């Protein structure tokens, strides 16, 4: 959950709101800041519907959520059918995927959850690239909410629409839109309740299950220049990025014996990952329906899962994968600039 360096960024928020002509945005900026910080101080439970829409299909999850501030969360899935009854228990950077049918717990760790510098950088990018505007107030799920739009400063399009609970500042509904105005995702609460912190037992792991080591995601580095230099091969960055995007963090990991560089670019809401490795073995796309395309005349493969897009190709030295929230055309333009 979001942990923003409160004092420093609150000061930044004040500085932004003091800019000429920004007076009307002050309440909206404050609401956005409070909404980002809310899960670190507010415990809650409810039902969540998470819909992610792609060009040719949608990924839908429905789960019951129980959150204890600042960083313990349990999600119990009721949909899709393949995940019914499964649980995700997150305690800080550790996540446990509990599969009652197989009596198995897959343990994984996400060191990025502790990357305070990246959290702060992303918030600053959000402030730099998006203009917050209050659209009004309304009742949502029986609670009074403020409706706040985050409009892209380069395109003036609304990228995100938030319904923020007036009392707790928790985001009860979040809609994200593509640059053409189409909705790409919606996350909404139902029957949300704020009844104090749930007990430890609610986040305990069931006994008698087989524990399996899942993926462990190492410590990211916020110095992207150093990261590229230490990749161990001649890594390259893109010369073109969409308006507002900047490098935020990255890491080098060894995947199936192949040293792989991962760089994350963000505009504060949308993200793009660039992976590079000197892999002679390529990419297994069996789980996806991929389609052939090109990057600068070279053969490439493109795939989607919900709104997340993936483009992969090779040049004479390296294998590349771009993953993000962007269209094929945008990914191809970034790819061509590498």
């Amino acid at each position, binding site marked *: 959950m979001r942990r923003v360096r409160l004092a420093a960024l609150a000061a930044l928020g004040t500085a932004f709101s003091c800019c000429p002509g920004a007076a009307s945005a002050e309440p909206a900026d404050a609401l956005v800041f409070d909404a980002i910080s809310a899960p670190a101080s507010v415990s809650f439970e409810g039902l969540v519907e998470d819909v992610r829409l792609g060009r040719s299909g949608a990924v839908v999850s429905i789960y019951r959520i129980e959150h204890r501030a600042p960083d313990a969360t349990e999600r119990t899935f009721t949909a899709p059918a393949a*995940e019914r009854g*499964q649980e995700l228990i997150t305690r800080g950077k550790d*996540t446990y995927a509990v599969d009652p049918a197989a009596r198995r717990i897959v343990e994984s760790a996400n060191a*990025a959850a502790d990357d305070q510098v*990246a959290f702060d950088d992303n918030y600053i990018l959000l402030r730099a690239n998006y203009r917050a505007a209050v659209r009004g107030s309304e009742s949502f799920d029986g609670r009074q909410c403020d409706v706040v739009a985050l409009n892209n400063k380069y395109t003036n399009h609304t990228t995100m629409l938030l319904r923020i609970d007036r009392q707790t500042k928790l985001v009860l509904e979040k809609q994200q839109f593509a640059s053409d105005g189409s909705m790409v995702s919606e996350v909404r609460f139902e029957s949300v309740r704020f009844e104090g912190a749930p007990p430890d037992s609610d986040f305990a792991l069931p006994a008698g299950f087989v524990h399996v080591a899942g993926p462990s995601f190492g410590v990211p580095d916020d110095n992207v220049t150093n990261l590229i230099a230490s990749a161990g091969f001649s890594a390259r960055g893109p010369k073109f990025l969409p308006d507002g995007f900047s490098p935020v963090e990255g890491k080098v990991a060894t995947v199936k014996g192949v040293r792989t560089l991962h760089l994350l670019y963000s505009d504060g809401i949308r993200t793009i990952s660039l*992976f590079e490795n000197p892999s002679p073995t390529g990419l297994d796309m069996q789980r996806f329906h991929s389609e052939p395309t090109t990057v600068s005349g070279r053969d490439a493969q493109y795939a989607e899962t919900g709104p997340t897009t993936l483009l992969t190709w090779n040049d004479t030295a390296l294998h590349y994968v771009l993953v993000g929230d962007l269209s094929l055309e945008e990914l191809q333009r970034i790819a061509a600039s590498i």
Partner: protein
Amino acid sequence: MIEREHIAPEELIDYVHGELAPADDARVYAHLSACTSCSEAHEGETQLTEILREHARLSEREMPPGLADGIYAAIRERRISPWHRFAELLRPAVLVPSAAAVAIALYFGIVSTQGTAHANAIDATYYLEDHAVLGTTVPFDDGSIAPTMLTSDETR
């Protein structure tokens, strides 16, 4: 420097599991490329990790208790002379299925060799998951990598 100071076992384990800070990770990577001893230790640790993961995965389908002991006991009780053992191998009931088994093994051996590159290919799901993981630092991210995590194969 590289030749004199080998990588400590604990640090090598952290390296295999991607737990090192980037600077340490780069240092170990550089050392491994120049040190045969540590490179062999790294290979061994990687194989051990794979074996442990495979064992954990298979342990969900363990044989019934006592079955293995029963099989070994039956083998020990059945004492056959070397000559009888050789003669049994020449019986058509044994020889024909054995030849077929050898042919099948050869066929699948060739097929699996040809398919090695595919088996070693990195699953695209890894890239999606890793993207989602670093994306958790973006405001209003749900902090959940649920859909791929729950359905993914942990031995990937």
